[in-house]
Every structure is written in C-alpha cells, then in structure tokens.
C-alpha cells in the first residue's frame, strides 16, 4: 500500500524526534567527557558543553595519583567478583530446583521468594540485623545481603523450564544424579542465560554504593562509588559556602568529571558488547515461548 502523504510526514517527524531524544540522552555523558578533558578556567566560566576547551589531561594524573582512589577501585573489583560468584551459585541452584514442575511444595517456595519482591524489612531492621551479625566493616555486608535477586531468579527459572526434559532424562538414565545433570548437562548448555545473569549481577554490584556507605566506616574498605559519592558530597558542601571555598570547589568540578569517567569506564567500554545480552536476557524472561 502506498503511504499517504500525512503518514510520510509523520515518519519524518518521528525520525527527527528520535534523533533528538538520542541526542538529549547522550548529552550528559558527552558533557562529562568534555569537562574531564577541559581546563578548570573554561569550566568555571561555563564555556564547556560537549567540546573540551583548554584541552588537558593533567587532572587524570591528579586523580590517578591518589592511592585511595586505586585502593577503592580495587575494592570494587573484589566486591563485584565475590558477590557475583555467590549470587550465581545461590540463584542457579534455587532456579533449577524451582524449575522442576513435579517438585512437591514448589508453589510454596516460589511464593516465599516472590513475596519478598513486594514487602521487605525496611532500612532499620536490616541495619540492625547486619550489625547484630557482626558484618559491619567487613566485605560480607556488601556481598551477602543482596545475593539473590528475585527478578534474576525468575528469569533463570523461566529459562530452565524451557530446557529439554528428554535430554535431562537421557542423562539420568545414563547414570547422572541430579547434581551431575545440573553441572554437566544443564549449565554447559545454558551459557546464554548464565552470561546474562552474570552481567546483570556484575553491573548492579559494580554500581552499588548504599550498602557500603551504610556499613563501612573505614576509607580503605570503600568501593569506588562511595569514594565518588564523598567527592560529590564534599563539593556540594563547599558550593553553599561560596567565597574563598569557591576555588577549591571548581578544581573539584574537573576532578569530579574525571573520577566519574574513570568509575563508569568499564561499563561504557563493555556496554556495546554487553547490551545485546542484557536485551536478550530480559526478553528470555518476559516473553513466553
């Protein structure tokens, strides 16, 4: 069918609108990158938008020579790896058991898990619990309390439910136990969903800050997100004072941009490759086959 003229006009407007939306989405990132490479003077006078002015990379040296920054960066890597490993073990075994439709009590166990999506203990009881467990100022306060994401659990469960039962039964007849089937048959054949889950968990642990902010008091334990948060909080604090503090603040605005850039760099670099997994992963769980 030939497009009517008004529909053609609509498509052009639609395309332009989407380009505009994309530009607006990207702008804040470009602004940060431009600031990271600009000299302080140009940022102060509000001349930096998306093109660096007074190009310099000395701020990178300033940020990178702070040993605490690197220490916190390393902490983030450690927390992310440990937390993701724990989360994957718990989520995979839970999802696999729940995916077996014949399992007695399955509905109840699913209910127990799903209820926590709608109701939770709240900030203070959680805080009191973590303190009572003696996890304050340890890595465990970061890596344990969020080890199972119910959303990820449901995505994995949906994937396992669609797994070929014939294959599992054949393996069982050949003498593999439930553990053997899971470890040697199901997991090797579920690389797509496992990769997706690892990515989901890793990104969320990489990005997390509040647990660490709440439960860690010692600077050398902070993840880099808390380092950045303190940088931001310090800067806004001085901004209110004005006057002599102004100079310190504006140096910080350059440092801030560089720190933000470095903190988020792994995600920005990996994003083009990860993105299709994320999208496929969420589709796996949401569209019923």
């Amino acid at each position: 069918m030939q497009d009517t003229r008004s529909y053609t006009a609509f498509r052009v407007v639609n395309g332009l609108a989407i380009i505009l939306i994309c530009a607006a989405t990207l702008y804040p990132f470009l602004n940060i990158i431009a600031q990271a490479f600009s000299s302080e003077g140009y940022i102060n006078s509000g001349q930096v938008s998306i093109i660096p002015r007074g190009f310099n990379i000395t701020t990178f040296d300033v940020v990178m020579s702070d040993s605490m920054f690197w220490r916190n960066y390393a902490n983030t890597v450690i927390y992310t790896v440990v937390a993701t490993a724990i989360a994957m073990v718990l989520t995979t075994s839970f999802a696999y058991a729940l995916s077996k439709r014949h399992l007695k009590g399955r509905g109840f166990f699913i209910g127990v898990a799903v209820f926590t999506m709608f109701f939770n203990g709240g900030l203070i009881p959680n805080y009191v619990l973590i303190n009572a467990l003696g996890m304050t100022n340890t890595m465990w306060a970061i890596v344990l309390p969020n080890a199972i994401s119910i959303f990820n659990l449901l995505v994995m469960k949906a994937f396992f439910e669609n797994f070929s039962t014939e294959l599992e039964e054949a393996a069982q007849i050949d003498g593999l136990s439930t553990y053997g089937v899971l470890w040697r048959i199901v997991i090797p054949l579920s690389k797509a969903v496992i990769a997706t889950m690892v990515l989901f968990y890793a990104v969320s642990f990489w990005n997390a800050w509040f647990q660490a902010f709440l439960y860690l008091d010692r600077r050398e334990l902070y993840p880099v997100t808390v380092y950045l948060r303190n940088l931001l909080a310090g800067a806004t604090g001085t901004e209110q004072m004005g006057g002599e503090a102004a100079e310190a603040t504006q140096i910080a605005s350059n440092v801030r941009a560089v720190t933000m850039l470095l903190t988020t760099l792994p995600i920005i670099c990996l994003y083009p490759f990860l993105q299709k997994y994320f999208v496929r992963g969420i589709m796996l769980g949401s569209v019923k086959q």
Partner: protein
Amino acid sequence: MTTIQSGPGTLPGRGAAEAAVVDDLVSEPRRGSRRRSLYAGTNNTNTWRYALKKDWRLYSLLVLPLVFLLIFRYLPMAGNVIAFRRFRPGSSIFGDEWVGFHYIEMFINDPTFWRVFWNTVILGGLTLAICFPLPIILALMFNELRSNAFKRVAQSISYLPHFMSIVIVAGIVLQLTSLNGTFNQILGLFGAESVAFMQQPQWFRTIYVSSEVWQTVGWGTILYLAALTTIDPQLYEAARIDGANRWKQMWHVTLPGIAPTMVVLLILNVGTFMAVGFEKVLLLYNPLIYSTADIIATYVYRVGITSSNFSYATAIGLFEAIIGLILILSANGIARKMGGNSLW
C-alpha cells in the same frame, strides 16, 4: 517501602521489568495443584516423605537459598516488631520491652512526618504520571522506524543511562544544574540570571522527575517492544482491508495488543509509588531544599541511622511499607475485576 536493596534485587526502573516474569509465574501453583488432585488417592506418591526421598537432591539445592531468604529477607520483616518495642543499640534485634503504639502516635503527631509524607506522595505521583506513559509512547515511536540499523542504534542509546550507577547519575545532575553547568549556560544565552537550582526548593521536583525520565524511559520500552513483536501481523492486514489508516491501526490493534503488559506494569508502578527513589534523593538533596525534597525514606534514614532513634524510624518505615503493600494489592484487585489482566 524503604528499601536498601537497590542492588541486584530491584532494577532501577521502579521494578517495572519484573512484570511479565511475575505474570508468567503466578499462574503456576494452580496448575500444580490441579495435577496433585489428579493423583491424590490413587496411590501414596503424594506424601512429603515420598517426595523428599525421591527428590532429596533437588531439595538440597533449596537449602542455601532458603536460608538466605530467611536471614536476609524474613528476619528483617520480623525485626519490624521493634516499631512496637523499645530498642536499645546492642540488645536483641527484636527489642527489649513492649511500648504498644507509642511510636505510631509519635509520628502521627510529628509535623515533619506529614511534610515528608506529602512530599513522597507528590514525588511518587508525578513520577508515576510521567514515567509510566512515556515508555509506551517511545516504544510506539521505535516501532514506526523502518531502518533496522537506526532502530538498533537508537534503542542502544536509550538503554545506556539505565546501566549507570545512581552515584554517577547524581553527579551528572549536580554538574548540569551547577552555576556553571549546562542549564545555566542555556539561561545565559537568553541573558537570564544564573539560578542555583539545587538550593531552591521549587526546582527539586522538576529536576528529580527529569532525571528519572532520562534514566528509566529507554529501558522501560523493552517490555513493550517485546509485547509488540507478539502481535499477529494478520490483525494489521485485516484492519487495513477494513479501511483503517495507520492511526486507527495503532488505536485498534497495537494498543489492545500491548494492553496486558501495560496493566501489569501499571500495577507494579502503583505498588512502588511510595518507594520513591530513596538513594537518588539522598544523593541529591541538602538541608536548603528539605521542604520539597525530603521524603519518608530519607527521613527514616536521618531519624534511624543518623540520630539512632531505631524504633521510631522503624515505625515510620513500616507505615510506608504497608501503604505500598496495600497499594499493590488493591491495584491488582481492581485490575482483575476490570479485565482479567492481573499479577496474580
């Protein structure tokens, strides 16, 4: 709900993405029970003893995850009892002695509580009204694109903010709104005076909701786009033969096609209505703008963690969580009565 699990548990998209998965799962138990009744009475394979003996390896896989849920999810729920008991730091996590509704009365008579309550309702309402329809519109716009390459690139860009840490997002917001930031540069072009956005209460809601739109709308389209692919192309064919133009096709085929997804996401959005982005507010606000920025969750944080008034803060948090639960239950009930599409 005062949540401290912004991590893996809750996606930043206000829980939106969970929808379809939940939808998938909640019909399960019924199917199971039907099967059970089929076998019941014919033999004794339906006892727990038989199940445990046959499937003990599967049950063993459940042990650690259930212990996890018990300790880190259900124990804190039980810990809410300190809203009705006096808690002293260092004592049992369930408090020392009963004080009845003392802390409940305390917040009902607390003017600050009512200020933060209304701030939460307004911020939650604005976010719901603006962040719920926009992904639908954007998904429909993506759907009209003919070039697949352009569509892919545009989608990738729109998802990007979803993967940023909330700390980065807050940092970006603070940069853009600072005195030498982009917004003031634009004002400068028009010869207007610079505005200290983060020091003026009247700007906070706009800034908060805009940043929420920026961060969540692209990712929000993903489930609608998935739903759009499941619409039968023959329906469009039929509509065209009946003389429907593009606009009418959208109205009578596309929108009904994604309506179930819309309902499920709306229920979840209503349920998280009170759980306004606590972490983002905590990162953005400052005492100068408490009058519009302070919400229940941040008040709980200050009363509880900063001032160590644990029982009082728990009472407020519990109140908020119960409102959230009631909202999601009633939204689900209404949806089920009206059209059969509901979470459970």
